[in-house]
């Protein structure tokens, strides 16, 4: 099948599966609306959805960029300073175990109800996957390269930046892929915690008003954006790391 046909066919299959589930659950559209209902709502309410979608997309992108920068920076710090690693790592793990909603009021208190808290939430949710994946990559550097760099008289920082970092880029890319897929949920949870706009807010509202098709229409927009973003990032990463073997590419 030619490549350009794949996305529409996938879409069609997902819609069919969805419709199957709808029928299976007894056509109760307040639990799960049918795809057609949802698409109808999507078309009819597009003018409502679009501005909310815009807000969420900005949050996702900002959160993604900041989260990756922060996660990347933390991983570098961890790799560079053994003491930092020993003391910070447990704190990082602990921070992961704290559910967002527990600290949400604090976050909102610090960052307000605007963009800030949502970006922070998206950041927080991708921070650990990025940090852990990248740090793991930094730990696994080919020892021969490190020996060579040592004899060459490279400082800790130079070795980190010129050898360990590029060697860890495939692992970082792996973390980035996860982050890309997870960032949207971060933004939506952020909106749930406190907001006055965004797809997450719209979903909450629609849910409370029992406008379940509208909620699923918002979900659809979110999902479409997520897939597009993931495809973009995946493609970009593969072009940026041409030396990494990838059986995908040969296809």
């Amino acid at each position, binding site marked *: 099948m030619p490549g350009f046909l794949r996305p529409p066919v996938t879409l069609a299959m997902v819609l069919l599966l969805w419709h199957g589930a709808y029928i299976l*659950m*007894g056509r*109760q*559209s*307040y*639990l799960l609306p049918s795809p057609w209902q949802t698409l109808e709502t999507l078309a009819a309410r597009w003018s409502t959805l679009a501005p909310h979608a815009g807000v969420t997309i900005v949050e996702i992108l900002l959160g993604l960029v900041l989260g990756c920068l922060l996660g990347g920076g933390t991983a570098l710090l961890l790799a560079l300073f053994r003491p930092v690693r020993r003391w910070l790592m447990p704190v990082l793990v602990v921070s992961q175990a704290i559910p967002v*909603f527990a600290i*949400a*009021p604090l976050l*909102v*208190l610090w960052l*307000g*109800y605007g963009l800030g808290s949502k970006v922070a939430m998206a950041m927080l949710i991708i921070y650990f996957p990025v940090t852990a994946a990248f740090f793991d990559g930094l730990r696994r550097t080919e020892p021969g390269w490190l020996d060579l760099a040592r004899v060459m008289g490279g400082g800790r920082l130079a070795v980190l930046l010129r050898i360990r970092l590029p060697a860890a880029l495939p692992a970082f890319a792996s973390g980035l892929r996860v982050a890309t897929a997870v960032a949207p949920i971060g933004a939506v949870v952020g*909106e*749930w*915690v*406190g*907001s*006055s706009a965004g797809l997450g*807010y719209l979903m*909450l*509202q629609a*849910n*409370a*008003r*029992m*406008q*379940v098709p509208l909620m699923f229409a918002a979900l659809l927009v979110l999902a479409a954006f997520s897939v597009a973003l993931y495809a973009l990032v995946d493609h970009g990463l593969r072009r940026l790391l041409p030396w990494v073997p990838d059986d995908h590419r040969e296809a």
Partner: protein
Amino acid sequence: AEKMTVLLDWFVNPDHAPLVVAKEKGFFADAGLEVELIAPADPNDPPKLVAAGKADVAVGYQPQLHLQAAEGLPLKRIGTLVATPLNSVVTLSDSGIDSLGDLKGKKVGFSVGGFEDALLGTMLADAGLTLKDVELVNVNFALSPALMSGQVDAVIGAFRNFELNQLAIEGRTGVAFYPEEHGVPPYDELILLANAGKLDDARLRPFVEAVERGTHYLVNHPDESWQLFVKAYPDLDDELNKRAWADTLPRFDLTPAALDRGRYERFAAYLKAQGMIDAAPELSTYAVELPIR
């Protein structure tokens, strides 16, 4: 005894006192029922699950019922727990907001319930303002913290029996504005919902009557019933719940099985006028008085 699953609207709290007392005093058992109370985390889920046949009875809100009925959920109100609105707009006494008119240009926090904008719009109209004059912010369930920390100037969705006490315990004084005093027709805050297709279920009428017994016991023996409550839920034995308990007592419906048709039709008309629903369905399709069997 026949098993029955009741989904609460929220975690167990003094609003559920008639149910708890009926259970603890054995009124349900007397009616041949073994009732399990389940707390959800999202108040919107219980009606859906009852509509889907996953539970027998749900605790819901009258305003939501109208929306649910308009969206075609197969639900019927079969009883009332709390017969007055609990919802209110709350500000802090030191905020300089003495009337609804002072809200102009302020931030109002809310916990998404689906019709805050209608409610607040009506109340603001009463003070000569419109919704455009305030900024609405979803603060989820952190109503009091948002208010106390100054993130918002007022909140809507605060329960008068709860948030006011909470503020008082933290040493702050809250001021409440009551919707029914500012142009919103009075309604039942907490009602009991059953699946519209299962109204011939023989357990429903005895269930509502047991709730009625519970309510009466509660009103007659407030202290004993408080003891029952904290014995069943030792976690709730604190100052806040004790105060809320007292404040909630006068608001329980002493005739839970009875349906005030006028009140429901009036509220449906109000929501329609607000544009919240396109058309009000025939009342009997979503609220009934269960016949005696």
